[in-house]
């Protein structure tokens, strides 16, 4: 079941209203108080990640309930550069852009392929993946389950890079508490889906 979408405009007021709605939705879905708090946290970190990773502060957020899955959808329109596309795709669990339906998805796949670091030589793995209409960003895969942020990393970084490192706090939280993270980019339409499942 799809719940009503709430508009985000970058203001604290609308974000608070959206987060309150997500938390109430999580309780109605059947999550206990603790898991409802984590659902709220995931929504907050998703909004923060959109802002810090790709500079997008406005869009729509809604919830879809599917049997055991509570899905938080965050959608926006933005013209992303290749680095921003990669950064966002890196957040997904499968490290892929899942927008593969329709002509926009096909064009988007091609853009991802051209932008990827893997377009070198005749890599049979990449060509196999392309033949199945998928692209792998081999150079950006990070080990799953590992906190992407560390104080050690932070201390080593010069001041101008520290903000970059701090972005990873959001990623660490999303990666830890979400059961699945899906990124879909079809030209300017960007969607981040974060799933939390009933245990």
């Amino acid at each position, binding site marked *: 079941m799809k719940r009503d979408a709430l508009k985000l405009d970058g203001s*604290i007021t609308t974000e608070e209203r959206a987060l309150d709605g997500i938390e109430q939705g999580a309780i109605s879905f059947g999550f206990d108080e*603790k898991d409802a*708090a984590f659902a709220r946290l995931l929504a907050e970190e998703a909004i923060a990640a959109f802002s810090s990773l790709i500079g997008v502060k406005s869009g729509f957020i809604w919830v879809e309930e599917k049997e055991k899955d509570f899905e938080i959808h965050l959608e926006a329109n933005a013209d992303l550069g290749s680095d921003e596309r990669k950064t966002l795709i890196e957040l997904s669990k499968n490290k892929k852009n899942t927008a593969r339906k329709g002509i926009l998805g096909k064009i988007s796949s091609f853009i991802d392929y051209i932008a990827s670091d893997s377009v070198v030589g005749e890599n049979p793995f990449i060509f196999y993946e392309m033949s199945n209409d998928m692209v792998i960003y081999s150079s950006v895969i990070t080990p799953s389950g590992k*906190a992407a*942020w*560390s*104080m050690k990393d932070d201390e080593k970084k010069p001041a101008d890079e520290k903000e970059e490192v701090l972005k990873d706090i959001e990623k660490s939280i999303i990666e830890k508490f979400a059961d699945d993270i899906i990124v879909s980019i079809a030209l300017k339409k960007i969607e981040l889906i974060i799933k939390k499942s009933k245990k």
Partner: protein
Amino acid sequence: MEIKKNVEGNIVTLQLKGRLDTITSSQLEEELEDVFNEEKVELIFDFSALDYISSSGLRVLLSAQKKINAMETKMKIIGANEVVKEIFDATGFTKIMDLS
């Protein structure tokens, strides 16, 4: 979020109630500015009434920890609930902060 401040000598205790998130983290930042205007202080965060913390709140705590490290004093967090402890674990903050 409500913040109650208690000062005993050079030990400042901040008791937080509610949520420390995008919406409220600036409140704590302002309170800490006042705290750090004082002489060398030891800082205790009492989280026994804190329901939740997000990355915005963690950033404020990280900034406080760095100031405390520079002053060569101490900072500790007491009374955190399971949700808050799990968030600290997920981000590696348990390794850099005194959480009891």
